[in-house]
């Protein structure tokens, strides 16, 4: 960042003009700042208020009940399923994206022809909505067995990979892991792009130096390049992690409102807008917000500080 302009050196009249202009700037961004203050921070405060209220049913009821809604969640079997599902989803989603993303980035970084073509192919799912993805993958991962086999199971059967045939999202307990696959399909290309940018930033001289020292390609990646990619991995984990905590559309499109595949974001929606348990819905919203904030705020803090340094 450059040093602030030396306006102190200007003559006083000019300085006054600058001051005025300076306030014009504030005026220009004021509507946006106010809108965000109200729609983000104000509404978060409002949700927090609803979360400690007894509001149940269509009419608002702001009777203060303390932490009752949160305590209720802690002993709510459905919320336990949600937390477990989020944990499984997050692990499969993040590991899947990192592994595929890093693998593809390393392959693409080999300086091949048609790199742009492959890169575009790996990234196009990003442009598609989770709803479309969910609808299509629901049919691809059709759990029907026996002679009603279809989707990927049918394909496995046809090409002799029978052992891969499974019940996908209908698998008891682990069904949510199958739901993470379309999410990996959608976001692994993005992870690839992050890693590719990271790999491109590794100076060629460093690679050459390692090769001259007799390092094998494997050693080169393990000892030289991977350590340099740590910051990329960290960013990717945070970005993917917050997507995972918020995952909603994909679950709705793929699984509807099945409790077995429920996550906090879908529970909040159904309990609030189908069941009218506003207090509980707000409490789930707050839990989600805090979990995302824990992940994102330190990241935001360090990234912006680095920018300024």
């Amino acid at each position, binding site marked *: 960042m450059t040093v*602030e*302009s030396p306006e102190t050196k200007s003559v006083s009249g000019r300085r006054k003009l600058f001051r005025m*202009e*300076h306030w*014009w*700037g*504030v005026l*220009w*961004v004021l509507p*946006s*700042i106010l809108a965000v203050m109200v*729609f*983000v921070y*104000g*509404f978060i405060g*409002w949700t927090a208020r609803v979360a400690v209220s007894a509001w149940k049913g269509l009419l608002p009821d702001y009777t203060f009940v303390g932490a009752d809604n949160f305590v209720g969640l802690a002993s709510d079997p459905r919320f336990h399923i949600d937390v477990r599902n989020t944990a499984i989803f997050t692990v499969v989603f993040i590991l899947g994206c990192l592994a595929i993303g890093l693998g593809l980035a390393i*392959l693409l970084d*080999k300086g*091949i022809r048609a790199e742009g073509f*492959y890169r575009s*192919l790996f*990234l*196009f*799912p990003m*442009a*598609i*909505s*989770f*709803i*479309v993805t969910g*609808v*299509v993958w629901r049919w*691809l991962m*059709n759990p029907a067995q026996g002679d009603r086999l*279809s989707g990927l199971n*049918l*394909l496995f059967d046809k090409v002799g990979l029978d052992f891969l045939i499974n019940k996908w999202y209908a698998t008891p307990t682990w069904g949510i892991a199958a739901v993470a696959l379309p999410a990996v*399909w959608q976001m692994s290309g993005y992870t690839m*792009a*992050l890693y590719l940018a990271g790999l491109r930033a590794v100076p060629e001289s460093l690679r050459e130096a390692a090769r001259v020292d007799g390092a094998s390609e494997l050693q080169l990646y393990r000892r030289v390049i991977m350590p340099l990619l740590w910051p990329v991995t960290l*960013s990717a984990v945070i970005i993917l992690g917050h997507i995972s*905590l918020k995952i*909603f*559309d994909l679950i*709705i*499109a793929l699984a*509807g409102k099945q409790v077995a595949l429920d996550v906090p974001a879908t529970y*909040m*929606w159904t309990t*609030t807008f189908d069941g009218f348990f506003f207090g509980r819905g707000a409490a789930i*919203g*707050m839990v*989600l*917000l805090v979990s*995302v904030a824990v992940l*994102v705020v330190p*990241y*935001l*803090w360090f990234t*912006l500080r680095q920018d300024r340094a």
Partner: protein
Amino acid sequence: MASATVSRANRRSWVYIPLTMMALFYLVPMFVMLNTGFKSFAEISLATMWKLPTSLSIENFVAAWDALSPNLWNSVIIVVPAATISSLLGSVNGFVLSKWKFKGANVVFPLLLFGMFIPYQAILIPLVTFMSNIGLAGGTWGLVVVHVIYGIPITTLIFANFFRTIPDTLLEAAKVDGAGIYTIFRRIMIPLSVPAFVVVYIWQFTSAWNDFLFAVVLTNTEHWPVTVALNNLAGSQIIAWNVQMAASFLAAVPTLLIYIFLGRYFLQGMMSGALKE
């Protein structure tokens, strides 16, 4: 020298095998959507999902179009104004917060940015209550307003990152010539920031087009955008899966076209989401 390059290239040719396999993996859903879409009703069966159509038919797309065309139009009249207003607002904010810094700008910026990471479930109840109270729930305009407001963080970030690359000397020179904030913004910054406009417009277009959560709580049946209608259609037992595939494709076409023709800009928007430039 030449032979070394060739041998290296040969050594690398195995790379194409995993890359192509992965490319096929990414294309599977597209294949199923199009393959199913182009079959005639008579040929549709889950058991022959992977077989190519014997003759091309657009019956599925016609049926999907009949079901979704009002919602596709709803999406257009939500997304186009939302993306346009967002871009203008973002350019103003980005300019001021990067080139016209005021005291406290360094505090305001991160506070704005946090808004793009929040789970919207944490503001949903007040949002729906508020929008109903001011009479903006149900229709498409309310959704435009919501997309614009929750788009402020990312659009501001992309423009701020862009304007930071413009040298301050340009601004100083214009100031010395007596140009005020409006002239500098209008005559210097806007013409220079066409690429940023493209990135932001595409970003907002795509995210508003693909939005489901805001739409499902803020619009009534008549004003549903395509994502809500598609989800509803896929959840119903009446619409056959082949029409669902064709409908999914129709819902994905606009953003896919943008990706195909303007993918470079789309990727820039993606990277900004990770706070990377």
